[in-house]
């Protein structure tokens, strides 16, 4: 995969060459609420995904890296310099915020050119045209942003963040509102950016979005870095986690006894009117269950997975 992001935990204090992005035990709290708790990671060039449910602290991490929030404790560094209170970093950082709002009275071209001028680029018009071409928005460049679709707004925001060709690109839920074609185009663009040595950090609450995109993934849950590593390892962890099911049948007691002989079943609890089953391998269990029931002449009335919410998947990674 092109553009696999390098990843290390614990920061790299004292290293001769600093990683483009370093979080050294970075925490952020608001009063008594801890939004981010002692995150330590350094990111090299390439694409890194920041995965977690809503409210996990992904945007807080991105805003700290973008220098828009100062850490309550620890440090956040861009090329070895503190990110917060340091406007100089914005020459090498581009941010695509999650919120959709873009100045609606500007045309797409005016918005991107404004970003180019604020970055003091020598030829802002040409830079704006190049950035708009990169996100495939030329045909709508002269229309007001107020008439743009959600996907077009995302793309114009990305063009605004890319216009000064930053070495660090931060994207907060960038695929919101994009159709599959636009998504594919954006993935190609981000891969191309990563392949030229840029560091791209993308937040998402959907694992599938990061498939084929992020080489490495940081998983945030409740403000903590729950897991980090290659996308495939994280994916495997999530797929292989224990699953629980609630089952109702014509003879719960006899079915429970039969299921306990299955190697994929970790435990069976007989509750009032139902069985609570915990399995280590979802695939094996769902194949074994009908075989067991048919063999014993038992009818299955209902089988419900009980922990399929995204939060439960992420919580498993925390407890692991």
């Amino acid at each position, binding site marked *: 995969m092109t553009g696999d992001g390098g990843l290390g935990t614990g920061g790299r204090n004292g290293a001769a060459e600093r990683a483009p992005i370093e979080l050294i035990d970075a925490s952020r709290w*608001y009063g008594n*609420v801890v*939004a981010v708790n002692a995150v330590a990671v350094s990111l090299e060039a390439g694409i890194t995904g920041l995965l977690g449910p809503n*409210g996990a*602290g992904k*945007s*807080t991490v991105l*805003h700290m890296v*973008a*220098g*828009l*929030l*100062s850490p309550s404790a620890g440090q956040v560094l861009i090329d070895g310099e503190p990110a917060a209170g340091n*406007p*100089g*970093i*914005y*020459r090498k*950082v*581009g*941010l695509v*915020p999650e*919120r959709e*709002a*873009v*100045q609606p*009275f*500007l045309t797409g071209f005016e918005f991107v050119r*404004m*970003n180019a*001028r*604020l*970055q*003091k680029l020598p030829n802002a018009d040409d830079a704006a045209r190049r950035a708009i071409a990169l996100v495939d928005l030329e045909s709508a460049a002269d229309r007001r942003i107020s008439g743009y679709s959600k996907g077009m707004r995302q793309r114009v925001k990305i063009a*605004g963040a890319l216009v000064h060709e930053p070495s660090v690109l931060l994207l907060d839920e960038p695929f919101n509102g994009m159709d599959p074609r636009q998504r594919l185009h954006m993935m190609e663009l981000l891969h191309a950016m990563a392949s030229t040595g840029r560091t791209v950090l993308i937040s998402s609450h959907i694992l599938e979005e990061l498939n084929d995109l992020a080489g490495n993934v940081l998983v945030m849950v409740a403000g903590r870095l729950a897991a980090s590593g290659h996308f495939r390892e994280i994916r495997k962890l999530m797929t292989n986690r224990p699953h629980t099911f609630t089952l109702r049948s014509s003879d719960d007691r006899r079915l429970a006894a039969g299921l306990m002989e299955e190697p994929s079943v970790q435990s069976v609890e007989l509750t009032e009117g139902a069985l609570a089953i915990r399995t280590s391998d979802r695939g094996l269990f769902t194949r074994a269950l009908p075989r067991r029931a048919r063999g014993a002449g038992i009818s299955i009335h209902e089988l419900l997975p009980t922990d399929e919410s995204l939060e439960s998947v992420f919580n498993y990674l925390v407890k692991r």
Partner: protein
Amino acid sequence: MSPVNLTVMWLTFRQLFTKQRLIALVCFSAAPLVIAAIFAVTRTRTPAADLDFLRELYTGVISFVLLPLTAVVLGTAAFGGEIDDGTIVYLLVKALPRWQLVLSKYVVATVATYALMFIACVLPWLVLGSGPDALALFEAFAAAIAIGAALYCALFVMLGLTSKRALVAGLLYIVVIEIALSPNVVGLKSVSIREFVMTVAGKLAATVPGMHAGAVSVATVETMGAIIFVGSLAFGIRWLARYEMEERL
């Protein structure tokens, strides 16, 4: 380093002059002309009557009503909804000092307010003004309104940055402090920008018949004006410098 950024000023200008706001503000600045034209057509005109009417127009309509209203609309809209809707982020993630953002927006709001009020002053003068007294009156108010625009906008830009209900807070200042309380409470005159405008105009047009000195001294205008001007901008700059994008938890 320049105290202002031209791109931020251009953005602010585009932000301030949306179609609806432009229509409202053009009506504001044209209102004195309409009033002067009605007077010119319906009354028996003499130079003294024209001068009296022009003075009352500059005082009661422009200085007391149109100037603070124009300033509150433009001043509070300079940062407008940018903080609430998050579009301020596009300005914050640039290698610009935050004080430059505040000053750029302040300058646009002040110049726009003054330009509109200058038009509001000059048009009725063209209709009713004749002779050196009318010219002196026009010049005095043109200068006093510049000071008023600078002070009002400093206050209202700061409110626009720091308050989610800046327009309401600004209108409360105008209605409660300036209109309701300051005519009756002596101490409040020294924080009323309206009184400062009248003092400057009264001083500059002291020879014009019927022109009264303001209720506060020139020294008060200088001292309190400087405090309001520097205090408001310094507070706004400090507020933006400490501003952080918080995740809604």
